[in-house]
């Protein structure tokens, strides 16, 4: 079994208020870039991408009088490390209850890191149809990409080292809104 390394708190990155402002700004940017909410849909990546997509959809709805539909994407079956990992990820249901063909899809996730999750999400999404455009919205971009992927909407750019851990908490999942930076301690 892998060891569970101790996490040492380093800094608070986002408070509840800051997160709300970042999401509000992203919602406006999405509307601006897509010229309104027509044809627009939000798709969240399980687990914490889903509430982010949900909140962005609500915000967009409140600005444009038209709430974009919401989808939930599980990328487990599309991971590129399934043949290597020693643990078994839980597979969740993908629920995209609308036709994604010719839609403008905003893929939502909490943290953009290596880009591998986004790569898997793109594959999972195009298996469901052929959207006109797929854009990527993330709450935190922490760098260290291993694939040529970038986000269209970023809540906060956060330079990190690979020994650091970014923890996002969201109200609907964790009971609070916050982003914190931790250092991976070597001693347990």
């Amino acid at each position, binding site marked *: 079994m*892998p*060891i*569970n*390394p101790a996490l040492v708190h380093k800094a608070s990155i986002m408070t509840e208020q800051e997160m709300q402002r970042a999401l509000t700004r992203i919602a406006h940017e999405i509307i601006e870039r897509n010229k309104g909410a027509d044809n627009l849909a939000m798709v969240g*990546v*399980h*687990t*914490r*991408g889903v509430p982010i997509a949900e909140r962005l959809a609500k915000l967009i709805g409140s600005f444009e009088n038209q709430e974009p539909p919401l989808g939930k994407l*599980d990328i*487990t*079956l*599309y*991971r590129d*490390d*399934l*043949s*290597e*990992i*020693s*643990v*078994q*990820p*839980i*597979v*969740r*249901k*993908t*629920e995209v209850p609308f036709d994604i063909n010719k839609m403008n899809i905003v893929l939502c*996730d*909490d*943290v*953009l*890191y*290596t880009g*591998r*999750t*986004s790569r898997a999400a793109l*594959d999972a999404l195009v*298996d*469901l*149809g052929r959207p006109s455009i797929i854009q990527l919205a993330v709450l935190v971009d*922490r760098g*260290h990409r*291993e694939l040529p992927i970038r986000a269209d909407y970023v809540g906060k750019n956060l330079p990190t080292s*690979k*020994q650091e*851990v*970014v*923890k*996002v*908490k969201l109200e609907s999942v964790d009971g609070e809104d916050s982003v914190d930076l931790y250092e*991976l301690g070597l001693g347990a």
Partner: protein
Amino acid sequence: MTSTQSIPSNIEVQAEAQTEVQALKHKHLLDLQDWTKDEFLQFFNTTDAMADVMKRTIKKVPALQGKTIATLFFENSTRTKLSFERAARAQSADVVSFAAGSSSLSKGESIKDTLLTIDAMQVDAYVVRHVSSGVPHQLTRWTDASIINAGDGRRSHPTQALLDAYTFRQEFNGFDDSGGFEGKKIAIVGDILHSRVARSNIKIWTELGAKVVLCGPRMLLPEELERKNVTLTNSVAEAVEGAHAVMALRMQQERMAGGLLPSLQEYSERYQVNDEMIKLAHDDCIVMHPGPMNREVEISSELADGERSVIEQQVANGVPVRMAVFYSLLVGK
């Protein structure tokens, strides 16, 4: 990506930190004896995700890319073999297929040599059906690959029981924690003696909190199956009364040495599950049959095609259930 990232060079730490993992990690699926209630319920959730894949335009995911699955059927089968192969391909695994009739077995090759020959082709899992009980267990000694039992003699047929229970859950689950099994009554009527399906089903239904009633002629109703929450009866009326599911089983005459059954005519008169009998069951009762079905013998055609019947749904569920089996056994080894 979930909220926690860590050192990417240590793939185990990363996977542990980023992913909610499940405990279901059997290497083989020989029978269901060591499965717990939580494992069954987790398994059904995985099956839900697989069922969802089968509803899409593109019914394929890359989860088992690069894996090879061999089907070894020493006994005939239509739906089970096809269903396993479909499930393997839907997750992008490669399939090599072996059928006893057209093989070197008929030239005298032993099962062990057959296995070792195929094993040299780098196989990750074998799906095995054999007329003798215990063959899948035996094969685990000769290969490092996973062995999946697709029916051995009268002993066990775990994927059939999993899909039967999954079908029941689709009908009765309130998507609560118990899966809808607690306190329900299941009647299994027919040739219990020769039925591996009945044996595997007894385990899964009782583990999930349901009561099982086994029914059939005395000679086909082995007393040793009686245990907590499992009762035996010769009366169909008694078995079906208040039941939430009734499963009819075929008379396996090819396994009967003779003298066990007077005639199919006599059997159907006393034990057939039909519209008349089903009136005694619970209002929401579903009718199941694992196939192959002998219409007008163990089940009336009217009932098999009627609105209570979930027989086609059972076949359809076979694919996602077997996809979930492959995922559970082959990912995260």
